[in-house]
């Protein structure tokens, strides 16, 4: 049943109907083969190897890969970072258990809607996390990690963001809770993070109220009942005896509660010689070096997180079309309409021209540039919005524009003459070309404007 094969250096294990990637050393790890295996087994006590495999896998864009099960062979002293982030500890004889877990995860992955586009990076991280929780069928339990910026590492999520972005994890999870996809369970801890770099690693100390010095000495105040003298303990202490002698009346203080008491304490700053009772507690951030009042530390609750029914539903059915297509709408500008709305208005306008012909014009603006093919979809959307706005700015308030894509726009010009329309066309061509050239490198854009009058019962091809 069990066969260990090697392709190049990479060891593979076939067990039942599964193929496991078996990693023992860094050099032999072939990341390109992850896609073809069902799970990864790491047999090494090296944290570095684990980190590498984990990072390559979990940060991949493909859900089939970032959700891949990873197992570790049990070694004595294996750090918490490994234990808490792998899908199970095993030994080389427990393939049955590995196969069972792999099967469960694989079945769950197959049920997922493999979403590729997200409204934002943060939502992408949230979505992937929900997928991870669904496929693992357990809660997200952060664990203490002295190497983590927040002092806590969230399995899976922490890997999705750079070290300096770790604070975003808390925001992303909170957003998930607010949206009803996640639920906060038991509180595990509180972290206090630097307001500059969001690190939870800092040194807290008492500092002088006046000079921020840290060389402080605290002393009890002694009150001698008999003569009402009160001062720091050193006023009463003697060089050669252990007696406490009152500097005012020279009496020996023998018995606390009878001769004297200690009603309070006082700090003395050895840097500036000032006295005070209430030092300022400051923190010195280990990561960014910021020194500030501890009141500026941000408190965050570390909680166990679970997936809600709504969250499960989301990862099974994917984002509603509206959500990820929201970017395809032109950002709201007065007078710029969606194509369907524009078509309706055009029909109404045609009807209106029966009584007022010759003063309404339909225009088509084409923006042709090969370079536009080289920019991303998101950039195209931004450019489209920009061009639509620019186009609308040359028209009157009651004129209408619609944007089909970054290269195709229509407009409806009301109450206009052919002469004015010609001038307007030139203006649009010149300015839109300038706008594209300033946004797209090496652009050879050609903008053309074609207009036609609108008549009753006329057919306009769009």
């Amino acid at each position, binding site marked *: 049943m069990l066969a260990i094969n090697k392709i190049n250096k990479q060891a593979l294990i076939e067990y039942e109907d599964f193929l496991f990637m078996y990693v023992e050393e860094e050099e032999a790890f072939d990341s390109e083969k992850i896609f073809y295996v069902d799970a990864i087994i790491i047999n090494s006590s090296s944290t570095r190897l684990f980190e590498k495999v984990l990072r390559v896998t979990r940060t991949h864009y493909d859900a089939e890969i970032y959700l891949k099960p990873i197992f570790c062979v049990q070694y004595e002293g294996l750090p918490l970072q490994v234990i808490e982030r792998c899908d199970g500890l095993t030994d080389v004889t427990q393939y049955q258990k590995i196969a069972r877990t792999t099967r469960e995860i694989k079945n769950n992955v197959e049920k997922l809607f493999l979403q590729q586009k997200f409204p934002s990076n943060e939502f992408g991280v949230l979505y992937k996390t929900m997928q991870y929780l669904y496929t693992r069928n357990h809660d997200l339990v952060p664990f203490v990690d002295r190497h983590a910026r927040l002092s806590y590492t969230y399995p899976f999520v922490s890997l999705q963001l750079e070290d300096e972005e770790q604070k975003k994890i808390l925001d992303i999870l909170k957003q998930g809770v607010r949206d009803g996809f996640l639920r906060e369970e038991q509180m595990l801890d509180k972290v206090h993070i630097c307001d500059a770099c969001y690190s939870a690693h800092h040194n807290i100390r008492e500092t002088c109220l006046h000079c921020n010095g840290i060389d402080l000495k605290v002393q009890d*105040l002694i*009150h001698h*009942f008999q*003569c*009402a003298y009160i*001062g720091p303990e050193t006023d009463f202490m003697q060089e050669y005896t252990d007696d406490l002698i009152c500097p*005012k009346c020279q009496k020996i203080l023998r018995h606390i*509660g009878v001769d004297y008491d200690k009603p309070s304490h*006082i700090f003395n700053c050895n840097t500036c010689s000032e006295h005070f*009772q209430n030092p300022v507690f400051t923190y010195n951030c280990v990561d960014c070096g910021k020194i500030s009042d501890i009141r500026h530390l941000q408190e965050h609750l570390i909680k166990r997180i679970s997936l809600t029914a709504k969250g499960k539903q989301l990862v099974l059915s994917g984002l509603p079309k509206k959500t990820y297509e929201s970017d395809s709408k032109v950002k709201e500008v007065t007078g710029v309409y969606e194509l369907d709305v524009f078509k309706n208005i055009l029909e109404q306008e045609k009807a209106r021209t029966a009584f007022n012909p010759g003063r309404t014009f339909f225009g088509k603006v084409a923006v042709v540039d090969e370079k536009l093919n080289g920019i991303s979809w998101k950039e195209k959307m931004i450019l489209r919005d920009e061009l639509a706005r620019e186009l609308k700015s040359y028209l009157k308030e009651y004129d209408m524009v619609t944007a089909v894509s970054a290269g195709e726009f229509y407009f409806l010009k009301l109450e206009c003459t052919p002469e004015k329309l010609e001038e307007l066309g030139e203006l649009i061509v010149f300015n839109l070309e300038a706008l594209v050239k300033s946004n797209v490198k090496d652009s050879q854009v050609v903008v053309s404007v074609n207009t036609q009058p609108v008549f009753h019962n006329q057919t306009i091809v769009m």
Partner: protein
Amino acid sequence: MDFIIEFFKYWNYVGFGKMIRIFWYFIFFEFGRYVVLEFWVLFVYWLGRKRRAKEWEAAKQALYNEMPLISLIAPGKNEGKNIFKLVKSLNEQTYQNVEVIIVDDGSDDETPIIGRNLEKNGLIDLFIRNDMRGGKASAANLAWRYSRGKFLLHLDADCSFDRTAVENIIIPFYLDPEIGGVGGNVKVRNGDVSLCARLQSIEYLKSISVGRIVTSYLGIYRIISGAFGAFRMDALKKIGVWDIGPGLDGDITVKLRKSGYKIHFEPKAICLTAVPTKFKVLWKQRLRWSRSLVRFRLRKHLDVFLPHKNWRWGTFLGFVENIFYNFVLDIKWYIYIADMIINFSSWIWFLIPMNLALYMVAGFMQQLSLSLWSERSEDERVLWWYVPLMVFYVAFFLRFCRTLAYIKEFFWKASYRDPWNPQKSSYQALKNGY
């Protein structure tokens, strides 16, 4: 109407000689001391105003040339509601080289929060809190321990000050280097709240604003008020600062005198304080104040009457005047009343109105002198209406309170059981004869 005719007929018949026999107490002790002597001293004081003004300017110049640090200390318990007002008034001072130290003597109100906040925001220099109450003296001593100024001003937290108050209370130290302590002019801020406060307004004007000009001029000034008093720091160190109270302001003044320092009253250094507005509270306050005469003058500092290194006429006479007018005459008043009842019982209904009339006349004369000296005479004009009531206030309310305090202190040492001081301190003070 018949009574009035009879009244005048009677006094016409009695004649001047017998009037002296009947009103000897008033004529020799009250009118002589509080009207004749005071008018005479104030007149002489007024004559020296130009010389004093010149000396004052020179002293002021000397103060500003040196610009010494002045420590303003305000020890107290449960003064949270007053602290901000106090600090605001101190920040308005014309003399600014000051440090403000507030000691909270085990308050159970919001004082610690307010004090720490003021310290954190730099409005005061040091706020010290004793979690266990130690009494006013220990709180003042603690503030002194951390004071760095050349002069120290002891303030009550429920006071506020004229803008020039700090400057004016320090200048006398530059008039005479032998001065160890200067008392400020304490006036009533809440005089319009009740009749009780109104009467105290007049009393403070008489006994402090004008009375202390006279005693200071005569060199027998005996109490630097705890509400507003200034001390030379070295003098405080020499005398061992404050001892357990109550009555610690009078006690420290005597200690300064006994150590050879002069004491001065400065009428231009004006402080406004809040006085009790109810007679019941006032009664308790005066019981405490009056007990200190027995405790400090007749017990602790009785050695003033004996010859010693720093024996001075001024200190001696100040004690004599204090004991005579407050203690001896207090007893004598009861003898006088008995004399009236026994020897003039049939004419008592003519004696009482005459007695009251004489005291009222004296009261109005004193009020006239107050108006002449007060910088707020316009505001204080309303007090004229209350002068007749002062007869009853002084003759009965204050006298009965004083008598009771003397008896309680003389026979039962009541001041050592006063909750104003914590029991642990009072016990030690009693045990060690303080």
